[in-house]
């Protein structure tokens, strides 16, 4: 369905989805002239950068060993590399739609490779050990009379989160909007978000886990003999717990990149709070479609995070599998892997493992990989389904055309060549 309309020489796309941060705001009005975006109405500063940033569709469509190449040559080269590998790995996948993820799963299967969505392993491990009590953003928007931001700075990283969903909206349940809500912020430094808090708790760096364990103990009514924990007086923590108790529907939001025991601690705290009131937790994920990648990987293979295909077997888990990154003898990086700088040349160390890079970056470094293939810019030139950080699926619509193929198309081309070579 194409909801756009044309006014004079401009095309106007209402309710467009912005993939710049995990909020996936879907109310952006994008105005386009030709293949140039003129305006992204409603977008925050990050979103504006995303929509209006330099898009340059010029230059070669691919490079092999740093030399310009055409698409077919590059696909052929990628297929040779991947099909010839004994232990290939497909990694990244945060910047494509469901269709790209599906193609990646099928390619990984055909080359007998591993497939990994980096990041968020702590959230998944926590889910697998204690579960998760969560909600869609609309529930926070409508019901949450108490919000705790735990070590995150959404005012900077998710600029419209408070105004659209978390703090300011009025609803039947909270007609007073911001006045009906209490905002607590716990962090280790002065953040922009901390300044907005009704209760701000600055704690010591590196003491998160102690603090969370303390809070859990206080919620459970276990006496703790200490005057201060994590650099904060016990009575201040107790004040926070009183706020927990007074909440009707509380929400704890934390940085989705957190790792270690603190994630399990936050999720356990929320579960324990549900013994006395309603509470939910939500990791604040970054932009792109990592949530979608994890979802697709899970439904296609039954396993989240990382899988591995071996001939004659179904998908095997490699969450608890093998040291994949070091074991690989060929790597396909699908755009959107924060671990890979696609505007820099590969280092000597990395070059030992031949790499193929698919990137929507407008100015990739020709030597970022052995084979670099350019793809349509994710979120602007691509259509399909993307998943918001709360798991809500949204339709992404290309607002301008690209001269480069989508990730999905490239992956399918490579898979096609792999199968041809095998046959």
């Amino acid at each position, binding site marked *: 369905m194409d909801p756009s309309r044309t006014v004079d020489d401009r095309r106007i796309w209402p309710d467009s989805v912005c993939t710049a941060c995990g909020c996936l705001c879907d109310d952006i009005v994008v105005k386009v002239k030709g293949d140039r975006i003129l305006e992204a109405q409603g977008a925050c500063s990050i979103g504006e950068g995303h929509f209006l940033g330099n898009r340059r569709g010029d230059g070669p469509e691919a490079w092999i060993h740093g030399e310009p190449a055409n698409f077919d040559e590059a696909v052929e080269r990628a297929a040779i590399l991947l099909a010839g590998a004994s232990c290939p790995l497909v990694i990244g996948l945060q910047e494509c739609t469901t269709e790209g993820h599906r193609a990646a799963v099928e390619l990984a299967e055909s080359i007998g490779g591993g497939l990994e969505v980096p990041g968020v392993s702590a959230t998944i491990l926590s*889910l697998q050990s204690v*579960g998760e*009590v969560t909600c869609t953003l609309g529930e926070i928007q409508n019901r949450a009379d108490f919000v705790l931001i735990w070590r995150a700075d959404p005012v900077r990283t998710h600029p419209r989160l408070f105004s659209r*969903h978390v703090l300011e909206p009025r609803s039947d349940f909270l007609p007073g909007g911001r006045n009906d809500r209490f905002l607590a912020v716990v962090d280790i430094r002065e953040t922009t978000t901390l300044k907005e808090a009704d209760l701000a708790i600055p704690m010591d760096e590196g003491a998160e886990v102690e603090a969370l364990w303390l809070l859990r103990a206080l919620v459970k009514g276990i006496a703790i003999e200490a005057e201060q924990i994590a650099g904060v007086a016990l009575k201040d923590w107790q004040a926070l717990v009183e706020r927990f108790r007074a909440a009707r*529907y509380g929400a704890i939001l934390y940085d989705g990149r957190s790792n270690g025991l603190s994630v399990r601690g936050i999720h356990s705290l929320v*579960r324990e709070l549900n013994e006395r009131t309603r509470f939910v937790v939500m990791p604040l994920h970054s932009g792109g479609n990592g949530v979608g990648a994890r979802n*697709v990987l899970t439904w296609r293979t039954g396993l989240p995070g990382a899988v591995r295909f071996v001939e004659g077997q179904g998908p095997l888990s490699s969450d608890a599998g093998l040291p994949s990154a070091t074991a690989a003898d060929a790597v396909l990086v699908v755009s959107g892997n924060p671990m890979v700088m696609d505007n820099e040349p590969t280092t000597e160390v990395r070059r030992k493992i031949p790499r193929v890079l698919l990137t929507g970056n407008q100015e990739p470094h020709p030597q970022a990989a052995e084979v670099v293939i350019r793809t349509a810019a994710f979120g602007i030139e691509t259509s399909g389904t993307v998943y918001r950080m709360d798991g809500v699926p949204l339709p992404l619509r290309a607002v301008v055309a690209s001269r480069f193929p989508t990730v999905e198309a490239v992956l399918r081309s490579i898979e096609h060549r792999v199968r041809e070579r095998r046959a």
Partner: protein
Amino acid sequence: MIPEFLKIAGGTVYDPANGIDGEVRDLWMSGGKIVEAPSDFETRPARTIDAKGLVVMPGGVDMHCHIVGSKVNAARMMCPEHGEIIPSTTSTGLRYAGLGYTTAFDAAIAPLAARHAHEELVDTPCIDRGFFALMGNNHYIMRAIRQNEPDRLKAFVGWLLGASKGFAAKLVNPGGVENWKNRPEGNARDLETRVDHFEVTPGQILASVAWAADELRLPHPVHVHTLNLGLPGNWTTTLQTMKRLEGHRAHMAHIQFHSYDGGDGDESTFGSKVGPLVEYLNDHPNLTVDVGQIVFGPAIGMTADGPVGHFLGRLYGTKWYSNDIEQETGCGVAPIEYRNTTAVHAWQWAIGLEWFLLARDPWRIAMSTDHPNGGSFLAYPRIIKLLMDATFRKDALAALPAEVRERSVLRDLDRQYSLSEIAIITRAGPARMLGLTNKGHLGIGADADVTIYTPDPDPEVMFALPRYVIHRGRIVVEQGEIREATRGRTLHVAPDYDRGVEPDLQKWFESSYSIRWRNYPVEADTIGESEVVP
């Protein structure tokens, strides 16, 4: 172009919808449909399956399972150790086909996440499929009831099914989930409980949505998971629910979980109240049920009934996933281990079988394990054996705790299902309950979904390993081997509704949801091959 024919020759056909009970017949199919035998005797089929001595049935139809969507996927992420019970979409399709099933419906999808469910359905091979859209705690529905605007409600139900490309209206703990989202320990204990903020009752939601589903002439009536699932003494609520639905068609889901005797806190009073409930069902042709049989072993509790998820996680001390979905529903997931040494579990097992054996009309009771809530659908052959072999059943009963062994009426029930009755509860009946005129039978024009079994004295062996499974005229399985992973179709409805409701709806939507009205409906290109069921 001359059509290609596939012929199944000389099989013993069980097609209860067409009154065929074990007759030797030929079946011809072409273009994915069952067709007349060509009048031209010269015509040779492209392939003939010699089915002499084999049993031929329509493909199986699972009308109530949980196989796709956000909560199933959350369960996969949470419980990789239980991958056998909640397999990938690919495995799910292949396993259904491997059991001779060619159609399955996911029973609980939040419309807000319908797009996700559809993406998984597209990736589920070998079966035709669809889902029921959750409505029991929908704010707009409750608002329309409070404002006494049945036409608005009816239009909304029509819009919601169209927008989500769903198949039927599903109610889960109507009103109770909203109360639970709204306050700790909130729930609805009976049909007259007040729903916070909305001033409506579960009874009103039940009756109104049942009415709307009938008015919209949906192929499948309102699909009800009523209040108090799994709680001792819940049978009274179930009976009240059935009574409240008088005058409407309705389907009562996983009735086993709603048929318990007993009182608060005292486990020794737990027991079966199938008797009065099945009597009511027998006398009321407007109602159908599926059983939700449990099987001993690991299972995953998975429900839109948020408070039930919390209850399970607490009861068994397991991990617990919960997801409140704005304006629409809740969701709970927790692993369960059913043990035949645990009295309550043994009761649940017995109660399911009591339902199968006491229900008079097999056309109104469907096979289900409420997969994976009562156990995997892979247990169907075992359950069939329990129904067809009274000795096997009594041996199984003998292994249960004394209080169940001695108090369940199961010990006095000698009924054994016939092959024809099995064909009814596993395909013909569910297809009819769903309103699928092309499924569950082998008459001319039906979808060419056929399962061919090798007869065996042990029904479990017979039903676990079909000789052939044919989906839309393509051979999918041959003696346990996958021949072709066909792409199935998504079955959905597109009811007519009064579009005049949309401006008000949009206004409400934009002020309540976290996404835009325009981004809510699922487009046709998301759902793959599909078919609108009239």
